[in-house]
């Protein structure tokens, strides 16, 4: 097998993995603070896609402003969901899991009724390809990768250095101890949920011009995100990044050797292997 083909496959895998990492980071942020597994997370990704469609294809807004709008609209929707539904279920993992499944169907059905069932294309902001020898990457995907990487770095910096980010980490480690130190757990939960959903919204908006938008577009990214956070370790942000890159590499290279159906199984085999060998995930807390 030519080495160029292998590198191209790795590039393909990493390219999309960066965006799925964004979705996974939101999911793991929500889990670490609220102990809620939000199955409706993919629907927030879908909402971001529709914000991009209406902002760009209908309203003619530019892309940077569209990304900010997607973060705000979807983040605000996430905050509303936290205040109205999930706040009462904090720590009640099973109840929250069932409610999030219900929310998934409600949001998906609402999107079908409100936006229609057909794929809606979103115009591309940049076109053309970049050639590095025999390797090819589209400019559009490079922009998406760069934007996603900046957002991941920004989130990391926020959690590391900003007072609210530090409060979130404290709440994730031990909510009672954090509350005793004066951290407003209610506010942290609300903002954590909003930021998590906002990240999914931005991911949806980033990929909208590449994949078009549809009411069911959130199904695949949320499955990938779950694989990523289980492999990386539930609640671990660096784990999500490593899990995402690993999944991208395995799927990208795997396609060269096996059918697409078999490749889809690879991710789940990875989950089984990690859970057997290291149940808390690669970088998860014990």
């Amino acid at each position, binding site marked *: 097998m030519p080495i160029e083909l292998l590198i191209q496959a790795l590039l393909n895998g990493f390219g999309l993995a960066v965006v799925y990492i964004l979705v996974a980071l939101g999911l793991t942020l929500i889990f670490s603070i609220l102990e809620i597994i939000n199955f409706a997370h993919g629907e927030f990704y879908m909402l971001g896609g529709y914000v991009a469609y209406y902002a760009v294809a209908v309203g003619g807004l530019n892309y940077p402003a569209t990304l900010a709008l997607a973060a705000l609209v979807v983040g605000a929707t996430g905050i509303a969901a936290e205040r109205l539904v999930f706040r009462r279920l904090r720590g009640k993992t099973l109840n929250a899991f069932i409610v999030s499944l219900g929310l998934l169907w409600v949001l998906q059905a609402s999107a079908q009724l409100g936006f229609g*069932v057909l794929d809606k294309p979103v115009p591309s902001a940049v076109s053309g390809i970049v050639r590095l020898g025999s390797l090819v990457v589209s400019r559009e995907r490079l922009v998406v990768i760069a934007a996603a990487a900046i957002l991941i770095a920004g989130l990391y910096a926020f959690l590391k250095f900003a007072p609210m980010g530090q409060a979130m980490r404290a709440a994730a480690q031990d909510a009672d101890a954090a509350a005793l130190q004066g951290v407003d757990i209610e506010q942290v939960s609300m903002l954590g949920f909003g930021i998590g959903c906002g990240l999914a919204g931005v991911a949806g908006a980033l990929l909208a011009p590449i994949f078009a938008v549809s009411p069911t577009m959130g199904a695949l990214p949320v499955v990938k995100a779950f694989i990523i956070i289980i492999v990386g370790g539930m609640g671990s942000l660096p784990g999500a990044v490593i899990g995402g890159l690993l999944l991208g590499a395995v799927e990208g290279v795997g396609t060269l050797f096996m059918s697409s159906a078999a490749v889809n199984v690879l991710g789940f085999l990875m989950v089984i292997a990690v859970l057997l060998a290291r149940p808390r995930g690669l970088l998860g807390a014990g």
Partner: protein
Amino acid sequence: MNRQRRHVGLVVLAIVAALAACPATAAERVLTVGLIGPLSGGAASYGVELQRGAEIKVDEINKGGGLKIGGDVYKIKLVAYDHKAQAAEAATATNKLVFQDKVKYIMGNAVGATCNAAQTITEPNKVMFSFVCWGTSNLAPEKPYSFRSMLSQWELTEPFYRWVKDTHPKIKRVAAISPNDTSGKDTNTAIVKALKTLGFEVAADEYYERGTKDFYPLLTKVLAQKPDMLDVAAAPAGEAGLILKQAMELGFKGAKGWTAGTNPFTIIGVAGPEASEGVWSPANINVKGDHVSAAVKKFGETYEKQYGEVPGVIAVANYAAFDVFTQAMQRAGSVETDKVLEVLTKDRFETVWGPLLIGGKETYGIDRQFLYPLVISEVRGGKVVDVAQVVPAALKKK
């Protein structure tokens, strides 16, 4: 008091007698007709066209006073269920139609695997089933109540690739990509068979899971085989558009085909004018083109006025199928499926396609395939242009 009671009784009797004497009211009945299809998800464009094609026919019938069958007049009620292109959901939807809604006619379905699932319920219950699914096994002697109202891969691929060979002799290597299910497997099988028969090389025979959005990994493998032509075979519009767009991003500049391209207008929307430029689709009908009848043009105008979109072949096929089945009911003077089946298999019908022929025995072992001439179209500058009309071999024999 007794006299008063007698008067009231007489008035009531008179009203009952008057109602009974009113023939239209007495004999007016409702015929519930079912429809299943992918009304959401990646293949939703198929289901939506099926439903709209049926709705236009139902409107025509109901606004025209109903369907006169024997001594009765039937208003048609259409009940549609979404199966999301999944076989299990299709079985559930069919069960609901047959046992809950008590339908005897299911006029519309798409995606081969879902047809097989539905037929496990329709055939034993003698429910007439018309569909546009592309599974070879969907038509068989043991499935006498099933009809395909649209040309399938077995009628289309050979004449299409014969045309490619005659008009573009530089194309030697063809890669086919389809969804990994019955429709996709059967379509690629038919394409590979046609390619080999006609002397082409098969550069790739690949499959993807429905719902896939990122085709870079698959295309990297396919394009490494240096195909002269890429056929997005049985991919529905949304996925076919993404494949072509991403193939262009990866530098593919060869010819493009869409064997199951039921509505080329939809692929322009998803792939954009640049990536869809030059796509040939042989399965479609251009309702605005020169090769279609005045009836098809009129149907296209009604559809566009009602739904704001240009219909593809699935909408026309389901409209025509509805027409054929209702004509057969009228000729049989009954809605009983066995009586209607007898008429369907013996008579000829005038439809928007022109005089409709039902054949296919050579391929499927039973004549249940609607046959009509096909039009090959090409996308040029964001528009759909008819480039040739070809006749399937089965139709030539008829």
